[in-house]
């Protein structure tokens, strides 16, 4: 059987030229125009609308975090004070880290695109617990407000890792910020829990476990981490707030507590959390590479299993953040080996993506440009992860700019590339409109270039010995810092261009048609944008695995 036998493959083209213009063609208005009051958005339980609200929020926080990143870079232009004082700088990088991680990156792909796409990819009408889904959004908003309020009123200066005992003794505002992080944790848990149950109970007939789109596998693995790891950071934030207010002494060395134990608990969450940030990106890229090379995924099972492998082994590599913390040599050895194993799972994915392009039919569109960047950044960022995971090498590198460059390579290089690829790949699906391809490619080039210019100098700075979280630095580090700041400017430029043409496309872009990429991904089976209940008519069935391009397609959509 071919996908063409699926009942909706030869669907109706929406073909409208303004939002919802011809929605009345079929009696099921698309989700964007089905109810236009503010209330119909704020109280919606439609996974697509919730996904969009998450998308808008995370974009907002990305902007805020990015502006602070630029402020940091500007401050680092000169060895001495440039535009702010030390206290402001310390608060700025704390705020940058906390916002980027908790308010942007963790919810970015799962809560925004996961929410939108997972039910569509499963042929379900919604997630398993729609109301919980909405609650998750409001919990996120509550936590975000608390956190931002705290950071504006006093500001936290501990770094995003809020290590004890500094965080216990600092005179800056600990309570609201960390309590905000605690609240956001619930949102993360709720979303993850929802997705796990959804994948277990909402798959349409035909979608067996090994016919799940790889994006769903990635989100599933991510959700497992979210559910299992987040409670620990929740507890820890509460304990630190408690310590700060009441002096329990749990992590305070002056009272017999152990600061290294704090780090164990912190990284028990925060190391797996980096896979919360990157696994969804891997999922997006699996979809993108298959769709644009019109090829089945090379080694589907290997990619699917490696997601679970990363999720599982990733839990037990946390000690690699603590090689020089006073942790025992024995533990360093255990965590060192496990760190290496995680790397292997990622390598499997990388090789299979390259294999997917092999003998494919590549259409070099914007998302694919991001895929190219992503591939390079993932290997380089990941391999530098392995480098710092090599116990003796981490001794000089720990807490220097080498580590900063490593994690930006993965978090910006891999995840943001995937986030941008996802926006561009699914933009027509979500809004039924097309953006300008030329600008897309130009900004992608700009971002990839700017990115390299920002963070490659930071690797060198790390080698050179510049510690992170430095407001001022010895003279000899200046040249590389200036290079990095210049790169960041380029990078910011790229984002501004994207913001402009996507905003334009949102209102004036030409209609995209149902499936402009001619992708066989499951989500494209329904309309673009999909109607409120995702399908018109009977529930679709999925006779083939996703991204199956073998048989000649007699009745495929001709052109857009």
């Amino acid at each position, binding site marked *: 059987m071919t996908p063409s036998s699926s009942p909706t493959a030869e669907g109706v083209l929406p073909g409208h030229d303004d939002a919802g213009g011809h929605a009345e063609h079929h009696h099921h208005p698309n989700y964007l125009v089905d109810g236009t009051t503010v209330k119909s958005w704020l109280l919606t339980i439609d996974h697509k609308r919730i996904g969009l609200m998450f998308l808008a929020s995370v974009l907002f926080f990305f902007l805020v975090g990015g502006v602070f990143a630029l402020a940091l870079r500007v401050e680092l232009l000169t060895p001495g004070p440039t535009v702010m004082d030390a206290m402001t700088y310390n608060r700025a990088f704390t705020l940058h880290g906390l916002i980027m991680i908790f308010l942007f990156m963790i919810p970015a792909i799962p809560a925004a695109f996961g929410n939108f796409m997972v039910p569509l990819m499963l042929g379900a009408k919604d997630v398993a617990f729609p109301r919980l889904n909405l609650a998750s959004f409001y919990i996120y908003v509550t936590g975000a407000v608390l956190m931002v309020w705290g950071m504006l009123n006093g500001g936290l200066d501990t770094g995003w890792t809020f290590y004890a005992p500094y965080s216990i003794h600092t005179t800056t505002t600990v309570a609201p910020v960390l309590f905000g992080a605690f609240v956001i944790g619930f949102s993360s848990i709720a979303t993850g829990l929802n997705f796990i149950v959804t994948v277990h109970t909402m798959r349409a007939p035909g979608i067996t476990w090994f016919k799940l789109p790889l994006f769903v596998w990635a989100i599933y693995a991510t959700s497992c981490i979210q559910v299992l790891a987040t409670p620990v950071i929740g507890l820890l934030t509460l304990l630190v707030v408690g310590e700060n207010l009441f002096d329990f002494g749990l992590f305070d060395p002056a009272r017999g507590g152990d600061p290294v134990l704090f780090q164990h608990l912190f990284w028990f969450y925060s190391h797996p959390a980096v896979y919360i940030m990157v696994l969804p990106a891997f999922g997006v890229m699996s979809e993108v590479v298959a769709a644009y090379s019109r090829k089945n995924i090379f080694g589907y099972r290997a990619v699917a299993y490696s997601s679970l492998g990363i999720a599982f082994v990733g839990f037990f590599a946390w000690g690699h953040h603590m090689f020089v913390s006073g942790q025992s040599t024995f533990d360093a050895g*255990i965590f060192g080996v496990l760190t290496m194993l995680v790397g292997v799972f990622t390598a499997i994915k990388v090789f299979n993506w390259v294999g997917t392009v092999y003998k494919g039919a590549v259409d070099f569109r914007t998302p694919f440009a991001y895929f190219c960047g992503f591939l390079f950044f993932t290997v380089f960022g990941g391999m530098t992860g392995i480098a710092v995971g090599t116990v003796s090498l981490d001794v000089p590198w720990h807490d220097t700019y080498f580590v900063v460059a490593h994690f930006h390579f993965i978090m910006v290089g891999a995840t943001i590339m995937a986030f941008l690829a996802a926006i561009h790949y699914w933009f027509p699906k979500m809004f039924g409109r097309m953006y300008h391809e030329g600008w897309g490619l130009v900004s992608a080039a700009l971002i990839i270039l700017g990115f390299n210019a920002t963070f490659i100098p930071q690797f060198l700075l790390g080698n050179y010995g510049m510690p992170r979280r430095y407001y001022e630095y010895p003279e000899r580090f200046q040249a590389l810092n200036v290079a990095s700041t210049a790169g960041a400017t380029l990078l910011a430029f790229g984002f501004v261009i994207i913001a402009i043409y996507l905003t334009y496309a949102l209102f004036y872009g030409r209609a995209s048609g149902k499936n402009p990429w001619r992708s066989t991904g499951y989500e494209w089976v329904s309309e673009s944008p999909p109607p409120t209940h995702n399908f018109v008519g009977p529930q679709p069935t999925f006779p083939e695995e996703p991204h199956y391009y073998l048989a000649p397609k007699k009745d495929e959509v001709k052109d857009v």
Partner: protein
Amino acid sequence: MAIVNETHTEHRNMQEHHGTARYWIVYGALLAFTLLTVITGRMHLPTFGLLLALVIATVKGTLVLLFFMHLIDHKGANRLVMGVSLLFVILMIAAPMADFATRFRGSNPPGSHVSDLKDLNFPEAQGDAIHGGSHDLKNPSTHP
């Protein structure tokens, strides 16, 4: 709307009707084990006292999980969830403990039995438990 891989075991198991006897028997066992753990706990068995207590607690916990919480009737997925979380808890406890047990003695909290330093908060309680003072730092080994 349908779903693939639908099985009916959980439904059937849950629907199946038992009397209340099962609950009472489990309750009895729980009471008995509580008694046992209190008695053995009062004996303050030297080394394995806490271990024994934890084993008993695990047995009690398993009974509650399986019968009161019906895990025995539920689907594999539910059991997997429980199993994985328990495994993670155990590993999460094991790694930091291994750390304390094997680190450089000077890095452990002063006053603890794996450290040679004095706890300044309790100077009078030093007694014989602490030997040697900071001189033992001279012993340049990583392991205790």
